[in-house]
């Protein structure tokens, strides 16, 4: 292969290489397998060759968007992170990926896209800030509808309405799933010994956003924080395989706030603001005096006095 494959995925934030679960899974797998990809981190899904993210541009098969298909394609290119696994471990991988998709993913979608406080405060505001101008008005809402649709299909209930009952069921499943994962991981570094495999990529993709994105309703996050080995597992992968984003995070925190407005880059911002306010006030005052709005108030009583005096004088005359 002459040129490296190109991978399109969502931009990262909060110390994550990407904020999207599927993108994270693919990124982690490509790092584990050592695949030399040219990675485009973008914030406009319409720029990706398939219209969704993540997307891998290949020469033979066109563009692929589903994470499992991307992983299969990378495997065909001899970038295989599961080479050393036994048949039993391969089966375990399939089984635990099913577990993640059935139990944890619905709760993940719920907590990010359906829970109204989390959606308005964090998810929508992040996408609205990062997606470019005309798209940012409708794309976040469209994405929410797609995610809700996905949730309905996974649960097999077309009439599904978000509510307390649903939330409780989803969270119960998800907490159980995290506990099971934690038990399976035990004190190992990765799920199958000392080297990461595709299962580690999937687990990382699902758990890292929960761990790093601070949500106002953080029930899942609290539970994850109480499972030390899973938390360490995620931060280890971040540290070992995505060192640049990890460092970015600490120095990134302050600039994210500063990025908000364009004026922030000027050093004498406060002074200029005060000066311009003073200038504006002075100009208004000058105008008021010139047109006589202010002066009349002051002069009137004297004139009235003079007028009365004159009238008195005339009476006296």
């Amino acid at each position, binding site marked *: 292969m002459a040129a490296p494959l190109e991978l399109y995925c969502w931009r990262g934030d909060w110390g994550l290489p990407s904020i999207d679960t599927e993108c994270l899974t693919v990124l982690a797998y490509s790092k584990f397998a050592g695949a030399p990809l040219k990675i485009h981190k973008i914030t406009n899904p319409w720029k990706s060759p398939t219209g969704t993210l993540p997307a891998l541009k290949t020469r033979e098969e066109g563009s692929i968007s589903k994470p499992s298909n991307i992983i299969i394609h990378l495997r065909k290119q001899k970038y295989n992170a599961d080479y050393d696994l036994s*048949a*039993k471990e391969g089966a375990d991988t399939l089984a635990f990926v099913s577990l993640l998709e059935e139990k944890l993913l619905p709760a993940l979608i719920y907590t990010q896209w359906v829970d109204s406080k989390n959606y308005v405060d964090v998810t929508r505001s992040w996408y609205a800030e990062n997606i470019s101008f005309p798209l940012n008005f409708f794309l976040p809402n469209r994405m929410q509808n797609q995610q809700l649709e996905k949730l309905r299909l996974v649960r097999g209930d077309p009439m599904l309405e978000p509510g307390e009952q649903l939330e409780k069921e989803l969270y119960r499943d998800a907490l159980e799933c995290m506990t099971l994962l934690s*038990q399976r991981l035990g004190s190992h570094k990765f799920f199958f010994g000392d080297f990461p495999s595709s299962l580690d990529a999937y687990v990382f993709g699902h758990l890292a956003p929960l761990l790093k994105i601070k949500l106002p309703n953080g029930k899942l996050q609290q539970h994850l924080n109480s499972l030390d080995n899973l938390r360490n597992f995620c931060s280890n992968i971040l540290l070992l395989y995505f060192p640049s984003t990890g460092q970015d995070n600490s120095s990134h925190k302050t600039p994210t706030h500063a990025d908000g407005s364009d004026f922030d880059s000027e050093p004498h911002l406060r002074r200029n603001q005060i000066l311009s306010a003073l200038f504006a006030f002075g100009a208004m005052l000058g105008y008021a005096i010139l047109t006589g709005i202010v002066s009349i108030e002051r002069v009137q009583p004297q004139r009235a006095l003079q007028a009365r005096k004159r009238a008195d004088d005339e009476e006296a005359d």
Partner: protein
Amino acid sequence: MSLAAEAFVSQMAAAEPWPENATLYQPLKEDQILLSDCASSLAVQTYLRMCGLPVQVACRANAEYMSPSGKVPFVHVGNQVVSELGPIVQFTKAKGHSLSDGLDDVQRAEMKAYMELVNNMLLTAELYIQWCDDATASEISRPRYSSPYSWPLNHILAYQKQWEVRRKMNAIGWGGKTLEQVCRIRSAFATSSAQFFFQPTELDALVFGHLFTILTTRLTSTELAERIKSYSNLLSFCRRIEQSYFEDKILSVSLSLFIPSLIPSL
């Protein structure tokens, strides 16, 4: 149901012993039931037999609409109704009958994961074959599914169901798959599933339910059954469970009718 109410129900469940007149409801066995429902129903029956809990099987044409979650089968125990294998396992556990107590944490985690795998792959593959393979859908699934209803309701309900399943398949990316590919997935599963089974657990019940049904059901294409038949360990597993839990010939068919080659090997 609030948390308190749920705790109350599970306490009630624990207090009452398993009654003699527990009933399992499923669609009509001869005319109506489809592959996937039959498999789930058999899985629940196997599980209850493994626990040693008696249950009567009742066939109702409208079982799907009687079930609290819209899925068959469901059991009616005392004054409670529970549907699907997962909740039923929870329910019997609350009553003190459990098969997975002897497992350690890792094994239990793996068992849960494999159960999801079965639901995710076998069940989806069965649904796919029933509703997305055009020959099977028009010759078997639609007529059987709609058999209790009169015109025009039979067409409406059957197409509604088919449309619903197809939409789900599209969403999970199975939409454009051909039968060939489904079979390949199935065989990947079979290789992987050759590895587990520690002791009789709910997982074994689930796997048995699905494999046995696939092996003994005649569809337009026998390719799936052929795939499974190429795994001798899965076959002998099914045979073993059939012999130990269904000796009284409650199953209308026997595995040996379908796989004559199996008998000498046992």
